[in-house]
């Protein structure tokens, strides 16, 4: 039986790894900080997947980012998705040749949907993770933002997802800007906005503070994976303890062996 997944997301901004709260960024440390505080060969045995996103607010340098990516994944034998500002097949290829298995695209899905078709033709649909950032308005309607959460689209989430379901994507990374970094739990109401026509696996993101939040989301039938980008909530052995607790509750997660 196909297992559900726990995913760890790293947010990279011009050389530093960041904590994000409602999309406001706080610098945590560079790659050597990450090395000292997250032993990835250990951490990776507690997660099903790693996502590394370049969310640089200034100009992006994909070559420096790639070097970071390579170092992070060198001791990880798990699936890795990466993205941030990918605007061409060649840029996607650079990440795929630096340890990524899948590419994450967000703003370009809206701005240049033809790029999604180009990427699918070149790498296959399974290689594309469409990331969607969403936020409630005062009447609790969900709206979609692009460009690192700075530009509001004139489309509600369910309309956006209906459009998205016509594109050749492999997975949806659905991120709540309201819950982002708060540690208050996932916004499971988001899932009501996913149309029935939407067939691909769903990763929910934004708000995980402890293992109970994983449990709440993993129990939802539409959720295939839970993601957290919080560098402190699960620091140290936080991820392995959380994973074991979720497993102890009988959730259908993969069991890993050491080599």
């Amino acid at each position, binding site marked *: *039986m*196909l*297992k*559900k*997944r726990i995913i760890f997301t790293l947010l990279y901004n011009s050389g530093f790894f960041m904590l994000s709260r409602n999309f406001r960024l706080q610098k945590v440390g560079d790659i050597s900080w990450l090395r000292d505080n997250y032993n990835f060969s250990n951490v*990776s*045995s507690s997660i*099903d997947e790693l996502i590394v996103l370049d969310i640089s607010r200034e100009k992006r340098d994909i070559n420096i980012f790639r070097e970071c990516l*390579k170092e992070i*994944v*060198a001791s990880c*034998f*798990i*699936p*890795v998705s990466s993205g941030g500002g990918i605007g061409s097949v060649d840029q996607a290829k650079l990440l*795929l*040749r*630096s*340890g*990524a*298995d*899948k590419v994450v695209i967000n703003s370009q899905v809206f701005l240049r949907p033809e790029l999604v078709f180009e990427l*699918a*033709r*070149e*790498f*296959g*649909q*399974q*290689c594309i993770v469409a990331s969607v950032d969403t936020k409630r308005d005062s009447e609790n309607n969900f709206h979609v933002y692009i460009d690192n959460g700075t530009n509001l689209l004139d489309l509600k989430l369910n309309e956006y997802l209906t459009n998205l379901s016509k594109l050749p994507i*492999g*997975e949806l990374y659905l991120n709540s800007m309201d819950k982002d970094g708060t540690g208050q739990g996932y916004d499971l109401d988001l899932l009501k906005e996913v149309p029935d026509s939407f*067939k*691909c*696996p769903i990763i929910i993101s934004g708000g995980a503070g402890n293992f109970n939040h994983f449990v709440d989301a993993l129990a939802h039938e539409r959720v*295939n*994976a839970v993601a957290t980008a919080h560098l402190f909530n699960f620091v140290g052995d936080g991820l392995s303890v959380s994973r074991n607790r979720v497993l102890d509750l009988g959730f259908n*997660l*993969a*069991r*890993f*062996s*050491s*080599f």
Partner: protein
Amino acid sequence: MIKKEVLIIDYGMGNIWSVANALNYVGAKVVVSSDPDLIVNARKLILPGVGSFRRAMEVLREKSLDQAIVEAVLKKGSDILGICLGMQLMGTAGSEDGETIGLSLIPERVDKFSELELNHRKIPHIGFNQVNSSEESKLFSDIPSESDFYFVHSYRILPNNLNGAVSLCNYGVNFVAGYENGNIFAAQFHPEKSQGNGLRLISNYMHLNA
């Protein structure tokens, strides 16, 4: 001890880096090449791949790598391990993006999971899933049956009466997760992405006939 050497076929598609990384980890000496002469003369090959069947076969043909692979495997008896799309390319034909002839090292075709098979399951089939392996399998030596491996694919090879379907996975339908027949090996999952179990399998491939 002399490191065992393996050649990863580089045709511009796929997660070469991750595969090489895992091979290095288990102590292999890794050569990455798109040179048909080197491929014909390599004793151990890995055909990785992420992408579309049609595009991949076009690239293999453009670079004359298809002939080099078939010659190495069928004439020279070199070992080959196809991973994910690499496994699929070893089939007789694929229907992704239109009908395309494959390398025909595995006598079965590759098609998309049908709606009937899926029965409302989502595709791609992404994530860790249990693999039931036969005890005789060399690839799965020392790996318990029902271990979890990482899959990401929408197309599959059905076991039918396929000789060499040594391990199966179920996603609405039983499909071939691992294939081995003589010197021809293949995995639909990504061993290089399957934590300790995957590293064990890669190590087993490197130590065949040792």
